[in-house]
């Protein structure tokens, strides 16, 4: 059967005109869609950080809490004697945060601050130190940058974004190189990957938020890959959400980050007045709780919020738990504004317990508790208004520091 079609546009020009009209309509529609698609995508663009992180200095100098001699001795005892095969990344991470990059040690068993940072960020150094067969590189490449492997053994980090938070706290600029097994990148890639993966409801978020506050103090908000608008108010809300002692290190990381948010907010407004008020009120409430639950000897335990623990302690050694709880409390107080601080005697008792405990600990005990002690040692230095490396002339910790008389006498009495 012969088929003919309804043709009314048999001359070329009407056909061309019709074609042009509809091509224009279609192209216009597609362009509109493309522009909107780009806009929708761009909403989730990662925020632009500043190159150098904010450095938040300690503001209190209270000799009653720790004397110069005691501080030097305690810090000397807590020097990072990590120069051995296969040093725990967790320890290096904490030691770098504790001591800072300028720290040097007149002890061949210690890594300097620079070396510790290299150990973390330069795969060549890492692979030299980590000789155990089968050890995988610390950093792995991800969609938007790099990230350290997490909780997969001694050659990996222990807390989400702890390395990033450490690098921020010790003042590492974002263009500082990271040498991975696959090539070279920058610290910016570490931050970008963290921002890309960040969810305010993730398991650990305290170090992430701290790093963001230091690298993004001029960013009011951004949108996560989950499509949620993120601001420091929202992150602070998250920090305030849980029961006090829940979470890593008995909930103390949250308090430290909250205190740091307030301090950053003093330099660059990242919080609303309402949220700042909520944080201050919360920290005051925590301080009041700590005052009630402080042991006569000055320490706190995992039940520092006064509740009856319902879960297994996780950390079996009670001394370790006390160091953890007490050291962390002293640390966040050291960075907190005056209005949330407890009376001096509370801080003195806590510091005294820490100093005395550290003075009597063996090298082996210090090694076993190094991560907890790093917070305690740093706290003591901060209470003298200094970062630990600033305690020693030119940042050089001597090979030997004699115990001050006060500690010798107490030790003798015990």
């Amino acid at each position, binding site marked *: 059967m012969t088929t003919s079609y309804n043709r009314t546009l048999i001359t070329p020009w009407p056909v061309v005109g019709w074609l042009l009209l509809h091509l224009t309509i279609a192209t216009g529609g597609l362009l509109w869609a493309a522009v*909107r698609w780009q806009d*929708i995508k761009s909403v989730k663009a990662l925020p632009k950080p500043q190159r150098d992180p904010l450095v938040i200095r300690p503001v209190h100098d209270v000799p009653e809490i720790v004397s110069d001699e005691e501080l030097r001795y305690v810090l000397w005892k807590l020097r990072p004697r990590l120069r051995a095969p296969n040093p725990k990344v967790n320890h290096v991470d904490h030691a770098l945060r504790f001591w800072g990059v300028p720290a040097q040690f007149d002890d061949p068993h210690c890594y300097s601050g620079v070396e510790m940072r290299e150990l973390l960020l330069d795969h060549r150094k890492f692979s030299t130190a980590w000789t155990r067969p089968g050890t995988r590189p610390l950093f792995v490449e991800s969609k938007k940058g790099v990230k350290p492997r997490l909780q997969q053994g001694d050659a990996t980090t222990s807390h989400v974004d702890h390395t990033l938070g450490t690098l921020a706290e010790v003042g590492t600029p974002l263009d500082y190189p990271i040498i991975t097994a696959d090539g070279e990148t920058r610290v910016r890639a570490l931050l970008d990957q963290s921002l890309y993966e960040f969810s305010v*409801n993730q398991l650990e978020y305290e170090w992430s938020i701290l790093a963001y506050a230091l690298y993004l103090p001029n960013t009011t908000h951004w949108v996560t890959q*989950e499509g949620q*608008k993120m601001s420091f108010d929202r992150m602070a809300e998250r920090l305030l959400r849980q*029961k006090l002692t829940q979470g890593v290190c008995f909930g103390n990381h949250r308090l430290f980050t909250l205190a740091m948010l307030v301090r950053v907010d003093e330099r660059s407004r990242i919080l609303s007045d309402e949220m700042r008020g909520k944080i201050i009120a919360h920290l005051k409430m925590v301080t009041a709780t700590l005052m009630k639950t402080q042991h006569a000897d000055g320490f706190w335990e995992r039940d520092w919020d006064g509740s009856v623990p319902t879960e297994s302690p996780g950390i079996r050694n009670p001394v370790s738990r006390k160091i953890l709880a007490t050291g962390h409390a002293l640390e966040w107080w050291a960075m907190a504004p005056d209005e949330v601080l407890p009376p001096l005697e509370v801080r003195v008792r806590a510091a005294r317990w820490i100093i005395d405990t550290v003075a009597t600990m063996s090298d082996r005990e210090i090694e076993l508790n190094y991560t907890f002690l790093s917070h305690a040692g740093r706290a003591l230095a901060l209470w003298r208004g200094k970062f630990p490396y600033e305690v020693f002339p030119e940042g050089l910790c001597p090979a030997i520091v004699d115990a001050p008389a006060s500690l010798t006498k107490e030790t003798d009495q015990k």
Partner: protein
Amino acid sequence: MSISADKSTVHDNLTFTAASTQRFALGLPHVFAAAVFAAWFLYMNYMPLFHTDLWGHVSYGQWMLEHRQLPQEDPFLKHAEGVDIIASAWLSQVLLGAVEQAGGDEALSACFAMISLTIILCLWGIFYQYMPRPGVCTLALFVTVLIGSTRIAVFRTETFGELFMAMLLFLLTTIHRSYLDETEAERSLSRRTFWTATLGIPLLFLVWANAHGSFVVGLAVIGCHLIGRFLEVGWRTRSLWSIIGDRWFRRWVMWTELAVGASLINPYGMDLLINALTFPRNPNLKDITEWYAMSFGDFEAIYFALSIVILLVMMRFSRRRVHPFQLLVIGLLAYSVTSSVRMIWWYAVVFAYAIAPHLQDIVDRVWPAGGFWKPNDGTNIKALLRKRSYLWTALSIMLLWYGFALSPIATPLLGGTPRKATQLYSKETPLALTEFLHEHPPKEAVWNPQWWGDWLAARGPKNINVFMTTNAVHVVPHRVWKDYMRIATAYQGWPATLDRYNVQTVIVSKVDQQPLADGIHKLSGEWKMIYEDDQALVVTREEELKKITPVTSSSVSRDAKALRRGAFN
């Protein structure tokens, strides 16, 4: 006026009267159809309102009516704060909210019944346009509804989408009646039909796009016609010039453009279209059963297989040409239903639309018009069935009246006892639990099954802080959804997840969350069971709630005063 003239007038009047009389006289097949429509309306009006996202949509609508604006974020879910939403169903939500405000939940039920009836009338009309045989059309409708039957019981905004789809297919059938029957050279469209389509299509999509995101399925159906025509003409002529010169191709281009253009007239513009197209990629939906891919054991798979058998039989015996657009629409919807079982209704209606002309061809040949009922053998029963009569008209009207009078919709007009809450709401609706929560409202965060979240947010205690709602599954951050699932399935570490969200009260569906119900009993001593019935249990660690005397199955009665009609309005 002359006598002859008078006679002529009388004759004309008599002729007119006779024609009118004949016009309103119905046959037995009409009675059958009327019975089916009445029964359908009755059934759908008695269908209890489902316990899931309907209540979220109603709440959204009432929120919009109250605030006179579209929500920027989910107004009822704390964990979705900061997530922008596109209220793609805003118009139907507003309608639902207004209906509920005007007439309560019974009005929602009536609304559902009326929409459902309109849908099947449109589907019936698709068949009827091809073959004015009410009985056969009703049987064909029955098969169509059977194929999509797993998706008909739940009233939600998607129901509006289903309505518009049925209307679109009815409209397209009007176009195709001439298109399919005549030879290519004679294909033409009456002016009336042309303008009906040219005005009706954009109008339909204007409303549809604002009422539900399923308008993209409608766009796809129209697009299939355009592509189908392109292929049809292109295959025969191998000439782009001929394709562009083809009037029908140009018409489909225009109608497609009008449909797309009209659907862009909405509060979100192009973003709505993009959102509708990308919506199925939302990772949270992978855990929702209705978004699962089809598997062999599903009812949907059985009905889908049945439809394929029917399709093959139709293709084998129909003498009509199979047009590319028919293959395209069936192929597209078949693919979508195998990817996601929730598309089975959409597949079913498109299936009906595509096979209707082939069914007509087969039926006309097997049972030529009038042949089947021809009373040649003098059988009285056949003669009775064949005859059109007022008796059948009256019977049809009576059936339709009974369909209305016996339905709950007639209660306000005709009197009677309103339905009890247990009849108005689906049996999975946690009525007794809701009453308990009203008496003892949780102040802090509550974890709940997502399918109860919308109901609890709408009808539970004021400002209840629910963890998840069905209406916001696609809105909440993926991390929240994963954590919800971890708790819902009592997966390793779920108690710590409760801690992370500072959940103080947990509501568990004993029927659908047995592992969690078992796990709840193993929670630490800080938790206390405060409520349990056959349906749900509640544990809490809120100090105030822990003080109350636990309510257990023996003290809960679903017929108690708490379940009075309207107790939760």
